[in-house]
């Protein structure tokens, strides 16, 4: 691929293809129903009538990781759950994205100090693309996070895929 990679870098055609593929990806991010704790209720609220996440094309909540593009880690992750999260993440087809919703998933949250079983940040288990602050975040904040993720997808390149670190 080394030779071809160089040929297609700054090409008009590839940028167009990039744009098209990215557009397809970002307008149909299917999240996985993966509620852990309090934030899951706000995630459900996002899916409901008031904040209808379907407007962003991300409303098809999938029960199976095989059909999902986005894992919204909504809630506290503890050691018992961490290996399941890792397994679910591995089961998702690529390209896959992770939003860490709320303080607990971001960095341990209120359980940072005395939570002996709490993982201090889900990024110690799976790579995270977007972090959303709040405890729990308002539904609008999650939508904001989704838009930020779409921005990230838009700016990525399919041909020159950045190396992902697990």
């Amino acid at each position, binding site marked *: 691929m080394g030779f071809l990679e160089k040929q297609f870098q700054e090409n008009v055609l590839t940028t167009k293809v990039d744009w098209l593929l990215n557009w397809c990806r970002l307008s149909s991010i299917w999240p996985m129903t993966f509620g852990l704790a309090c934030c899951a209720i706000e995630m459900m609220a996002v899916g409901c009538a008031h904040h209808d996440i379907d*407007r962003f094309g991300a409303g098809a909540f999938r029960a199976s990781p095989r059909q999902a593009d986005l894992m919204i880690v909504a809630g506290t992750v503890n050691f018992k759950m961490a290996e399941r999260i890792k397994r679910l993440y591995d089961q998702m087809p690529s390209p896959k994205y992770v939003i860490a919703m709320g303080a607990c998933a971001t960095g*341990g*949250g209120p359980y940072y100090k005395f939570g002996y079983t709490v993982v201090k940040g889900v990024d110690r288990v799976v790579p995270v693309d977007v*972090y959303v602050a*709040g*405890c729990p975040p308002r539904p*609008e*904040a999650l*939508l904001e996070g989704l*838009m930020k993720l779409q921005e990230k997808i838009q700016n990525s390149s399919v041909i020159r895929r950045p190396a992902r670190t697990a």
Partner: protein
Amino acid sequence: MKVASNYIKNVVDTLKTTFVGMKITGKYLLQKPITVQYPDERLPIPNRYRGIHYLEQEKCINCLACARACPIDCIEMDAVRHGKELEWITFTLDYQKCMFCELCVYPCPKDCIHMGTEYAFVSYDRSEFNHDLLSYKGMAREAKVRMIEADKKKQAKAEAKAAKAAAEAASAAADEGAATAGTADEDAPEDDTAPE
């Protein structure tokens, strides 16, 4: 026979209750949708909303009351004191830990830390959540001016006092002069603390 009638009854019941349900759903068909088109229109945020913090830095006296009240110690603050004025080094609030409980707001003696109505705080990098609440680092311009003025005053006063003491020592008698110098010593610190 009974089985057949039961079966028919089941079918009729199902259709009937489904019709009742569909009637309710149909009622909402022509109503205005309640969806808020988020980035374009926003729900009103009430005044008491507990969002991202903001700090009125001029009022803050670095007393650490908010940091002590925090259940998870997510507030870190540090400042150097020059007389009455503060030189700010850091005041950060870690949103990786913060749980928006508002317990930090009430112990504040100067009522200077507040929770705002801003709620959307997203980032690609979690280290950005170590949020800096300071609007300026170091000293404020006014504070610096005040400090310089206070310093000048102090210096002038000290000079005046020295001159006075010298003059008194030179002119007046030894036993009376000592008593007046003592009262001047007591006055001096009070003058220093009123720079405005």
